[in-house]
């Protein structure tokens, strides 16, 4: 049985759905960050697969930039989360509905 491009795209879909469910369901902000990582990774898989099956390196390049963006997102996001936790002693998403400082 030959593994084709569609297999990888379907796998990427499933992982993306898991990540989306995580983003919508969780109220803990740390878990929200985890779900975001899952979303970015599922897209990376499909980039690499398309790059392989078309003999084109552009997909891998985009995957590299996605990884760089994910790393900087984690650094800034965790910094903001630490500041928020110092001030309010909670990382609950529902308590963040007002934008008061």
């Amino acid at each position, binding site marked *: 049985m030959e593994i084709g491009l569609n297999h990888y795209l379907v796998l990427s879909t499933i992982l993306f759905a898991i990540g989306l469910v995580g983003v*919508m369901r969780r109220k803990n902000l740390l878990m929200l960050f985890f779900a975001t990582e899952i979303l970015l990774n599922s897209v990376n898989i499909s980039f690499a697969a398309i790059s392989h099956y*078309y003999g084109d390196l552009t997909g891998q390049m985009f995957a590299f930039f996605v990884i760089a963006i994910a790393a900087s997102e984690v650094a800034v996001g965790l910094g903001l989360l630490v500041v928020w936790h110092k001030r309010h002693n909670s990382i609950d998403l529902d308590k963040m509905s007002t934008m008061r400082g």
Partner: protein
Amino acid sequence: MFEAIAFYLFAFLTISMFYITVTTSQALYALTALAAGMIFISAFFFILGADFLGAIQIVVYSGAVMALYAFGMMFFDTTRDVKEKQGNNAIILGLGTMAALLIVAIFSAPIISDNISAFYPMTAGAGNTQEVGMVLFTKYLVPFEVAAVMLLVAMIAGIVLAGKKMDISLTLTEEDEIRAMREEQEKEVS
């Protein structure tokens, strides 16, 4: 044959790990499951012949990002659960699947039309790392530099946000103020 076995094995492992990450209530379980899932994802990159991307995936995600998360978790009281509001699970699941299917449609639209030609075709006789270097440092040099600047900005932002009293510039304040601040700190310690 071996490719198929490896694909299905790692697909099962990755999906189950990420499922644990999304559903568990313990932050530590979620963190370890996420790290395992990242490593399993790098296996797909190795299967697809993107060796350099797989190595970067292991180094960046399960090295740097996981260490950052573990470090961040020390600040939070993770033993106390955040109350998860239980919404309608069927609606959420349906929405998630629908959105994911939409993504696939977006992806597969140009594939089905079948008029794609390789923009930067792979060079024969060169390893994956060599090819990546050649394309990255010629065609994608400007985005590469922009990404480097972005990482620098993110690093400085992280230090300023998480560090203590980093919003005060020590070079711009007067000597007396700094001395007063230090005495105040010592008073707090003693």
